[in-house]
């Protein structure tokens, strides 16, 4: 196959990869915060539930989680799902996996804030919600940004794992072309795509970090 055709086909896959990437971030970043809240809760059962959840999500392969989320409704519950579920399963699996990692990052960031910040806010009459969103979270974002950048870069590459349930994202497409052509050129092009994608991600995150440099 000619290179321009390869690239054209890969571009379709790439759109799917970017969709997986963006939707995963959209859902897992807020979900991770909620999980971190549960993980730090004063209510012990909730705290333990979240601890176990995080432990399982971090302790088993994401590829396995993708397969389980995709097949469990049918094999465990006997449900027949529409063809659209394939893509939904990918988003669910990535979201619940990444939310666990983000939860631990949030927790580290929140625990790094000096208790004097809460006390100063309390004395000034801020409510607990105001304290969290006006005083604590803006500082947490700055602290956790480098760790979040790491996860986001990993996510770009992890989207390729969706090939296990045959989502037509970039890596799946590249593998198909490579097999049909008996050539690795499609895989190399895909590699370049992932790399450029991550350079852009790194650039954006660096810019964000820079914008938070106005204080130490």
């Amino acid at each position: 196959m000619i290179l321009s055709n390869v690239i054209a086909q890969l571009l379709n896959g790439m759109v799917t990869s970017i969709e997986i990437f963006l939707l995963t971030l959209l859902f897992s970043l807020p979900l991770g915060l909620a999980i971190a809240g549960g993980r730090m809760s004063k209510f012990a059962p909730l705290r333990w539930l979240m601890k176990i959840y995080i432990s399982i999500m971090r302790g088993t392969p994401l590829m396995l989680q993708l397969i389980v989320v995709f097949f469990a409704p049918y094999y465990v519950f006997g449900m027949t799902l529409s063809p659209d579920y394939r893509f939904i399963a990918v988003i669910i699996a990535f979201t619940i996996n990444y939310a666990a990692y983000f939860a631990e990052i949030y927790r580290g960031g929140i625990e790094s804030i000096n208790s004097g910040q809460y006390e100063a806010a309390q004395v000034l009459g801020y409510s607990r919600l105001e304290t969290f969103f006006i005083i604590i979270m803006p500082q947490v974002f700055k602290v956790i940004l480098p760790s979040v950048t790491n996860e986001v870069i990993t996510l770009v590459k992890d989207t390729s794992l969706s090939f296990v349930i045959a989502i037509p994202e970039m890596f799946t497409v590249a593998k198909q072309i490579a097999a049909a052509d008996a050539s690795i050129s499609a895989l190399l092009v895909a590699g370049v795509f992932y790399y450029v994608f991550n350079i852009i991600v790194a650039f954006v995150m660096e810019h964000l970090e820079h914008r938070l440099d106005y204080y130490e």
Partner: protein
Amino acid sequence: MSLLEIKNLKKSFDDNVVLKDISLKVERGEVLAIIGPSGSGKSTLLRCITDLEEEDSGEIKFNGTFGLVFQNFNLFPHHSVMKNITNAPIRVQKRDKDEVYDHARMLLAQMGLEDKEDAYPCELSGGQQQRVSIARALAMNPDILFFDEPTSALDPELTGEILTVIKDLAAMKMTMVIVTHEMAFARNVADAIIFMDGGVIVEQGTPEEVFSSDNPRMKDFLGKFYD
């Protein structure tokens, strides 16, 4: 009626009794200094009065609002000096924005920091940060201002500028309760002094009375400063 009245306050952390039985009164316009060795319960007393700790028993009767100046300033590092001072009056007290900004500029001028309103705390010296935190507390128009060792985190050469600010506030009849290790300062500025040791008030009265006390613990404590 006293502005602040505390009766039989008791507080323990697990088995450690920090406040045994504290009673005191603060009148409007009065400056009270609380002195005593480390671990005597001074800071815990202040933290109970300001609701940062919950007392085990006793009564805290308080007819007004308070501000608290911390040993470590606890300014919000992501907010400018101006926002540190104005945000709570605007958001919490729902006061008019222009009025609050005028008030804040006046307080900054009073603190000698009129050119620092756009600075961030990390760009200021410790003494400047502490002055901003005093302005932040004053911006809430408190009836009483508490200081928890306001100079303990500062280099000796920066201590003076904070003590001067507190002295000026005393001259303006601001009601203040100051936990401090600055003996000469307490003696000069305070109307009343409380000496605490081991969770109890060992001695209280005017500076002359307390500093000339025959109480052996008081003498022993003061001896450490003047030897």
